[in-house]
């Protein structure tokens, strides 16, 4: 099945006419929805709820784009992709935007022909082990058997880290995060490695989250962000500024609850962002209310974070690096003017 779908995508890449690369915004408007690539299921980031509707941190980015473009946060179709399939899906034009906790690297940006539009989650790769092993540092993992997902930067970092520490390991690779978790829980592996956000997400859905511990070491920089195809800058701009608008909204204290009041604000920054003055929307080829709609229908960055990943969720991830720059984190959006 997997093989068949990869080949289908490769064939699609072969046959796909140039249309997809021309003007994605026009295509999206013509078909009436955005085709958004997400994970096959990672709690908090993108997972179907009990009604079968996809929700999560990455899903909300796509919803914000939909709100900015259509004034309606539900004009979306989702394509769940595995780590292996995601890039081919975007290259071939099967999806319009990929929001799938994907690490921004040079070769992905350049050689694979993509355009990362920003970072929506600063992450780093970590290790999770069972408490019963009594391990307290990743430096003690010499000789361990490690389960991980194939097709990720995780594989490369893992090999680098163990080589740098002069330690040996044995790896087992699976296609989806669920398969990795299953194998880890069955104890065929000692260690589960992926981005720390992913570890917290996976831990939250194990039968006994307290039996597992995420080790303190962070072995890599993993700036996760949404990406689009290289070459359609107008579309890339819309994605980039939707993300920035969500962050700026948090800086300015605009939330989904008070956005209507804020339209009356005297602050010129807020006026510009919400389309009360200036022509930012027009410059992007969107409605003047683009940012207003995104904030109103989805929420600002902080709200999205707290809803899906924050302390009131099973994941209980603290903001850490993902706090605003003004509050001790590194989240920093260029000014919208």
């Amino acid at each position, binding site marked *: 099945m997997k093989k068949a779908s990869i080949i289908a995508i*490769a064939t699609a890449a072969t046959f796909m006419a140039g249309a997809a690369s021309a003007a994605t915004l026009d295509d999206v408007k013509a078909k009436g929805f955005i085709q958004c690539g997400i994970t096959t299921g990672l709690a908090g980031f993108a997972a179907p709820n009990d009604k079968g509707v996809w929700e999560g941190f990455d899903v909300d980015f796509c919803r914000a784009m939909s709100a900015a473009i259509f004034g309606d946060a539900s004009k979306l179709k989702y394509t769940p992709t595995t780590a292996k399939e995601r890039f081919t899906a975007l290259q071939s034009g099967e999806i319009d935007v990929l929001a799938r906790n994907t690490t921004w690297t040079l070769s992905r940006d350049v050689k694979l022909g993509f355009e990362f539009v920003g970072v929506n989650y600063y992450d780093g790769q970590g290790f999770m082990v069972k408490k019963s*092993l009594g391990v307290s540092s990743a430096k003690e993992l010499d000789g361990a058997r490690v389960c991980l997902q*194939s097709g990720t930067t995780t594989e490369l970092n893992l090999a680098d880290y163990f080589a740098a520490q002069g330690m040996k390991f044995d790896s087992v690779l699976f296609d989806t995060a669920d398969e990795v978790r299953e194998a880890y829980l069955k104890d065929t592996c000692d260690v589960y490695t992926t981005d720390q956000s992913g570890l917290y997400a996976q831990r939250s859905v194990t039968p006994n989250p307290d039996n597992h511990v995420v080790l303190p070491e962070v072995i890599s920089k993993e700036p996760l962000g949404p990406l689009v195809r290289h070459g359609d800058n107008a579309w890339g701009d819309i994605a980039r500024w939707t993300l920035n608008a969500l962050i700026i909204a948090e800086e300015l204290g605009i939330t989904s609850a008070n956005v209507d009041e804020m339209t009356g604000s005297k602050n010129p920054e807020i006026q510009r962002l919400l389309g009360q003055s200036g022509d930012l929307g027009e410059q992007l080829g969107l409605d003047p209310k683009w940012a207003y709609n995104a904030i109103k229908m989805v929420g600002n960055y902080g709200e999205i974070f707290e809803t899906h990943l924050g302390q009131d969720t099973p994941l209980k991830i603290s903001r850490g690096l993902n706090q605003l720059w003004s509050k001790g984190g590194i989240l920093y959006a260029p000014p919208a003017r």
Partner: protein
Amino acid sequence: MTVDVPGMSEGAKVSPFRDPKVRALFFQILVIVTFLAFVYYITDNTITNLEKRGIASGFDFLTQNSGFDIGIVLFVDYNAQVSTHGDVLLIGIINTLAVSLSGIIFATIIGFIFGVLRLSKNWLVNKIAAVYIEVVRNIPLLVQLLFWYLAVLLELPNVRDSAKIGESIALNNRGLSFPSIVPEVGFWIIPVAFLIGIVATVFISRWAHKRQDETGQPFPVITTGLGLILGLPILAALVAGMPFGFEYPTMGRFNISGGWVVKPEFMALFLGLSIYTGGFIAEIVRSGINAVSHGQTEAANSLGIKPSITMRLVIIPQALRVIIPPLTSQYLNLTKNSSLGTAIGYSEIVAIFAGTSLNQTGQAIEIIALTMLFYLTISLIISVFMNWYNKRIALVER
């Protein structure tokens, strides 16, 4: 070919529209031109689109460093820091071949045993074979693989409470560990003795065949051959004073290290493939045996030949002619199905090369093309071999 058209005498002008030769030529050229135009369109479109999106193409990536680890590496050295994507391709090929070949051998053994049992007159034996065949043939292979992996092999004891046979053989949900043989000086004599055993067996078999043709006296080739192939290396080892040592698996903090280990990912794929395909082979064997006229059995019986020899020397050789062609396609299926190993973490070509390498380099078209080329080559080689074998055993008409 000349065509006689009524009312047209030899040499008279035929309108080119009505000339079958011209028409045939025209349509053939039309088809070829359309096909070439289609190929040109696809190639050109692909190249244009790749360039437009700034995606690199070509086969240079095969010499680039891979940088990731592979779970199962046989026969070659692999190091994530220095090995290349070309090495990944090689390891993928070796791993695919390893599981396919061992699967083909085991599936054939299972298939022949159950195919013969299915024809047994003993009710119980017959039904057991029937249940096996019907169950495995009617459950999708992927489900069976997940069953073997998740429900059987990963449910084995934890590595810390391994089931042990003696001190040095341990079975747990990370595989079967056993001592490895470490060659010492003078080890070469053992493989050499093994090879001599095989060569000697081939000659003895030829000689025995000839003698039987001339005198009618049979010679126990199988027992003699086994004796030579196994006995000579043992003798050589004794004479050379056991030129090898053992490395015993030892329990580390996390894992058993040292020795040899058969990993559950390999085991699950091997069992799943061979038991699944074995069911199909059993049906092929049964139908092959049924295709041999019952008169053959009766004739052999009336000559006073033992039933076991009747089966081995009268029925099976004739049945093979019916069995081999469909058996070939089962072998091909098994090889191609090995790509499902990607679902249970086995490092075969689709998982590591068309999976990880593709993802790291992003060169879908080149990698998928190479992978398809590999499967095509293997399938053709198996077909050629089986066709050769089929010809060899075909009925020689005199």
